[in-house]
């Protein structure tokens, strides 16, 4: 591995921050992800996000076919503690998760409370593909007018997310990654509508 934990993670952070402040902006972190050669059961881009944000002060929950092994690995890499979804600061729904796991994760994730809305969970979702196609229309802070994205995942997360984020400022913030090392962020402020066809 020749990942530079200082400079590469800084570059990943700036790209993630750019995507979080401009929802719909898909950032690519292939340059940094390409330096990882670990077998982790996650996309390389997800591992970079984990290294960037998790440490001993945070708790996480993994949804994956290899949940136990991945949980152990993340704990070894970051010293973050595994916990149940309701208590997790970071919920990871990996590409190998079962159908329905994403909806369950969103339903059970901690939305914070009115005194401390920042305690709302951050949910990492490994999508099949992310693109700027006109499937979903986004609006809200960070977006001039509207922006367009397409997110291919196993589950239908839009309704579950809307239900969780119903009472702003409570809610969860989503960070999607895909196998092409793209990163897309959907903070709780972003409103999503489906593009009408025809």
């Amino acid at each position: 591995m020749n990942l530079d934990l200082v400079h590469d993670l800084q570059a990943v952070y700036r790209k993630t921050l750019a995507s979080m402040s401009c929802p719909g902006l898909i950032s690519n972190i292939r340059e940094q992800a390409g330096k990882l050669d670990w077998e982790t059961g996650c996309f390389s881009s997800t591992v970079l996000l984990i290294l960037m944000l998790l440490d001993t002060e945070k708790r996480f929950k993994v949804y994956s076919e290899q949940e136990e092994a991945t949980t152990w690995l993340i704990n070894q890499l970051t010293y973050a503690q595994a916990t149940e979804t309701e208590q997790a600061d970071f919920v990871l729904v990996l590409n190998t998760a079962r159908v329905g796991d994403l909806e369950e994760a969103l339903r059970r994730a901690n939305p914070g409370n009115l005194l401390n809305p920042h305690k709302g969970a951050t949910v990492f979702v490994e999508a099949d593909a992310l693109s700027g196609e006109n499937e979903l229309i986004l609006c809200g802070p960070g977006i001039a007018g509207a922006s367009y994205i397409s997110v291919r995942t196993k589950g239908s997360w839009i309704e579950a997310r809307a239900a969780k984020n119903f009472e702003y400022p409570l809610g969860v913030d989503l960070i999607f990654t895909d196998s092409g090392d793209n990163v897309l962020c959907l903070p709780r402020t972003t409103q999503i509508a489906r593009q009408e066809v025809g």
Partner: protein
Amino acid sequence: MRMKYQFAFFDEGSKREIRRATLKAVAIPGYQVPFASREMPIARGWGTGGLQLTLSLVGKDDRLKVIDQGSDESVNAVNIKELIGKTTGIAITEETGEATLIQSRHRIPEIPLHAGQILVLQVPLPEPLRYFEPSEYETKKLHAEQEYSGAWLMLFEQIMKYGHMSTGADHPVLVHKRYVMAPSPIPRFDNSKLNDSEALILLGAGREKKIYAVPPHTEVVSLDFEDFPFVVEPFQGVSCRLCGARGVYMDEVHDEETGETLYQCNDTSYCLQRLNEKRG
């Protein structure tokens, strides 16, 4: 002994803490996210919040600009630039348009910021409700309940006492129709630059251990009343004595010999740029 510091001074754990808080701050515009503020090699109240944000953001390819009340060369700006420069080796610039990261004390530059830039503002008092509520827990509750009568009452009292809203700087704003936020002690003149900004604006209060943010294209409205609308500092009929600029924020300079009042641009790099353009 010459110490070799980690890139950007901080250990990676500190950066991680600040980065987590910053991402949450961006996700909840105007909400003050508490964070474990670090001890810094400059005194609290001298921009440690802004400095911590900048150090968590900065990378090898950044170009940094630091300003203190509009000036690139006053003590606070020079100290911070030197600390960041020496621990990162990155390029420092005075050109607003060239900078990728701008740390500022109490001004937003005159040259409009563009997409991709990040403005970091230093904040002494992040709590807009602190004036009438000393308890942190109580102000948190007031924010939770969106109970902002106190902020309005403060402005109302100023109108009753002085006939106008007398906030010299740090005039409270409403962000994304939800949180009342202290915009840091920028002059009222700069408040409108927060609204629908092209650049990401991050605010850091080191002593008070808070980070908050205004993402690009976010609605930011200065608090006012229907019959007492928000007004900025008036500079009508005034131009800069050096570059002739109008419609920018000015410093008032008294010439003791002649007794004359003169004006010059507060944003020194903007003024210099205009002078250089004039010279060709």
